[in-house]
């Protein structure tokens, strides 16, 4: 029984590794094709871009759990795994462990850095979120933390911004918080793949636009946020922003486009279409078909697994 569990774990990990690499390769090719075709049209949906980036991880985990492992339990007969399967499984386990170590190391570095900034920090009344005013060394404005998020504002930023500009800048960080952008950054940090850099940058750019959109509810707010962006661009942090944080002016190259977009803000503009229903509709539509043909799907998956092994 224990041997069977170990074998299934090794095969599952091996299958996951192969599926992750194949799907990642597919996404990289798709993205670069899309980039060539649509780079001027400005793909701006942060959700879609993040979905595309995370698809290999979610997709391979889903296929492994829903198909590869049940197929192994149901259809596996004798022990026919060889050294190759073991290597694949161990390799994937090492990659996963490597990703985890990468995340933990970055998180530990970020915590240490933020702890030094927070030594003489004072609480600032600038909105719903805990906002702390930090002394020298910190970035102008930054959202830190995943489970207990805080906004850190440098004393230079507080001196430069008017109360309204500061409020709307903190609202921008609230937008990142609602979208769980720091958590998304953590996940991406733990699941790297060559060629995904430009997709990640495009997502980060789209996330900045989305947070701007979320922070602003009228033209006055939009002008205040634009003004805050310009002012904070004049401040250069002594140290680079730590991992899994979002800063108001992290992507300085984007400031021109963001300011112009904010100045073009219209009172009655329609918000980005909520496309989540379309995703769930596709899932619900595909579910009966998958259930009806589940046995056949398991057979195909098992053959695929066998093919990988041999």
């Amino acid at each position, binding site marked *: 029984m224990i041997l069977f569990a170990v074998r299934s774990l090794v095969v599952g990990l091996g299958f996951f590794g192969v599926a992750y690499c194949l799907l990642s390769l597919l996404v990289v090719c798709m993205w670069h094709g899309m980039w060539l075709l649509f780079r001027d049209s400005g793909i701006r949906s942060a959700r879609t871009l993040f979905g595309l980036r995370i698809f290999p991880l979610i997709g391979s985990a889903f296929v492994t759990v829903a198909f590869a492992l049940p197929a192994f339990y149901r259809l596996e007969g004798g022990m026919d795994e060889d050294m190759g399967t073991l290597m694949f499984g161990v390799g994937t386990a090492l990659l996963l462990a490597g990703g985890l170590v990468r995340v933990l190391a970055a998180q530990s570095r970020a915590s240490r850095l933020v702890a030094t900034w927070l030594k003489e920090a004072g609480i600032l009344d600038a909105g719903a979120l805990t906002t702390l005013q930090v002394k020298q060394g910190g970035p102008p404005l930054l959202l830190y933390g995943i489970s207990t998020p805080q906004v850190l504002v440098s004393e230079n930023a507080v001196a430069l911004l008017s109360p309204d500009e500061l409020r709307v800048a903190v609202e921008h960080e609230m937008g990142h918080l609602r979208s769980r952008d720091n958590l998304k950054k953590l996940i991406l940090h733990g699941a790297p793949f060559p060629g995904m850099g430009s997709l990640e940058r495009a997502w980060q750019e789209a996330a900045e636009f989305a947070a701007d959109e979320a922070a602003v509810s009228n033209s006055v707010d939009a002008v205040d946020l634009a003004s805050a962006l310009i002012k904070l661009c004049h*401040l250069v942090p002594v140290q680079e922003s730590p991992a899994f944080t979002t800063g108001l002016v992290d992507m300085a190259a984007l400031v021109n486009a963001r300011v112009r977009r904010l100045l073009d803000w219209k009172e009655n503009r329609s918000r980005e279409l909520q496309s989540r229903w379309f995703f769930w509709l596709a899932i619900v539509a595909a579910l009966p078909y998958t259930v009806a043909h589940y046995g056949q799907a398991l057979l195909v998956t098992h053959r695929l697994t066998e093919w990988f092994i041999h």
Partner: protein
Amino acid sequence: MNEINEGASQPGPDRVRLGPLERKILEEVWAHKSKSLTVRELMAEGKTSLAYTTVMTTLDRLFKKGLLQRTEEGRAFRYSAQCPPAEISRLVAVEGMRRWIESSSSSSLPLSCFVEAISAHDAKLLDELRVLVDQKRLELKRRKEKR
């Protein structure tokens, strides 16, 4: 050939302020990359219509500012660039910013963390955006007053 270090005891300048003539001469020296030049060679290029003594004095001033290095050759000096152009641009920007900060009346503003050197292009862009923001603010204010 003797290496002469008078007036330039440090390897490079800490602070730089350049006049238009100094900048022009410096750019011509940079154009020759690592090659050193005498005043006569620089004038022989034909790019400058300045008097010999003007070029000589300007090169001497740039040497004293630590922007050029020179070696003696007979009765003349050979000049070459001390720092790359990017470094000089950075120092000029830093100096400009420092002077602006020092002249600022609102000394309570903690400016110590201000940009060490934002490039001229970025500064211009931010100024343009600032103007747009001010215009928009004014427009919104007028609209509000009309109502």
